[in-house]
């Protein structure tokens, strides 16, 4: 009956008033991200501190939105920056162009670039969205060497 249907609807909304709220109060509370979360990129290092990136520019080649710019340079044999012959002298990602598809991480033969957990990417000028290698490298405080690639089959 119409009235019973209507009253049932009112009962539903009334019940929801007393339900636990599902809202995450963002700056104070944070959700636990999935291990395969594709946030901002990171450049990884080996345990001895050497950069994994060898400046091959495969990531730049595969990038569908051409957001990555790389200039490679020869390693100085006495003070190598990466274990290979070359390293990335310049590694820039234009975050406003990036679509976070993760192809760069997939293409990387050295597992140097991975999708990190950081999703707080707002800023107040366009220039700040072109991020440099120093911002992309895993900071020493977060440890060298050990990391989990998003390609590792963890879910599904």
């Amino acid at each position, binding site marked *: 009956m119409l009235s019973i249907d*209507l009253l049932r609807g009112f009962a539903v909304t009334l019940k929801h*008033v007393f339900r636990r709220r599902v809202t995450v109060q963002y700056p104070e509370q944070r959700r636990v991200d999935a291990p395969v979360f594709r946030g901002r990129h990171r450049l990884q290092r080996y345990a001895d501190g050497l950069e994994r990136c060898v400046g091959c520019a495969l990531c730049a080649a595969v990038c569908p939105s051409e957001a990555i710019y790389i200039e490679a340079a020869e390693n100085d044999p006495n003070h190598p920056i990466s274990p290979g012959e070359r390293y990335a002298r310049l590694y820039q990602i234009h975050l406003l162009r990036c679509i976070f598809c993760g192809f760069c991480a997939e293409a990387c033969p050295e597992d140097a670039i991975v999708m990190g957990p950081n999703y707080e990417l707002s800023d107040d000028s366009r220039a700040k969205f072109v991020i440099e290698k120093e911002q992309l490298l895993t900071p020493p405080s977060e440890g060298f060497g050990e990391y989990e690639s998003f390609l590792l089959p963890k879910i599904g």
Partner: protein
Amino acid sequence: MSAFLIYTILIVIKIVIVFGIVLGSVPALVLVERKLLGWMQIRPGPNRVGPWGLLQTIVDGAKVFFKETVIPDGVDRPVYDLAPLLVIVPALVVSCVVPFGPAIEIAGIQIPLSITDLDLGLVFYFAVASLTIYGIVLAGWSSNNKWSLLGGLRSSAQMVSYEITLALSVVGVLLLCGTFNLREIAEKQAGGFWYWNVCRQPLGFFLFLLAGLAENNRLPFDLPEAESELTGGYHTEYSSMRFVTFYMAEYVNIVLTSAIITTVFLGGFNPPYPYEFQGTWLDGLIGVVWFGIKVGALAILYIWIRGTLPRLRYDHLMALGWKVMLPLAFINLFITAILIALERPWWEMCAVGLAILLMTDIFLSHILWRRRRAVY
């Protein structure tokens, strides 16, 4: 001091207090609405500004004051400027006739707790409240925007249609009370909730409640501003204070429609138990508090309805107004008149009203609804 001077001062004081309360209830109601709608959608609602989000609407109001007034090209300036005022002024003027409490006596002066004790109070309410339509239609027309115009057109059709039901549904009460004076209507319902008109006119109460929703353009009858179809309807092209005028008028209208329903059907300022008003200031306070509780409960019911029911389709709206509610209002009027002429007791009137509601329900859900006709 002459009696005239005292009377004038009293009226000015009452105007200031009543307008202050009515306008002050707007931010409170908006906050309650946002909180309640949030809870119904399993969200917390506004909770950032002030403790528990209590300052949210005040901050919103302050923000709106500093916003730029954007006036689109090609608007009809005089009409465009006039429209918001045509909406808010009738809404506020209606508050003049609402009795907020029983007459009290201070220092030998009789003070009725309403701005004016108009003998044609209910007629005044209908006359003035329907002026709101002009504001909405003119706003839609002068905005030089198709969607605004559509919103204005819809509102004119909708409000004119439901106006008839609104007025007809209280005629039963008028027959019972024999007066248009809202204070007298309220006083006739003294002596406990079984004396309230809602117990004699359940059908009239129901119709008035629904038609009141439609008159205020509230969900599920908010077609004039249907966001998903008309990007805001008649007030699309209004910004800053002009927009807030429309917004405030909507909530003032909710408060005052609730006040009129309370006065006409829910016993006005009478408590739901037998109580004799002696005219002291304490009695006045009791009356005002009970009045406020009832108005608040109705306003919350309006919010609850908004949180539950989806918007009606336009032809459904018109069909409901003309083919269901208007005939029901006529049936209610005739049956009330017959029962009064036969001098039947009040519970018979109540039973008949409820029976008609039940029959309508069965009729709508089992005959028309099953055939999927566009009547309901």
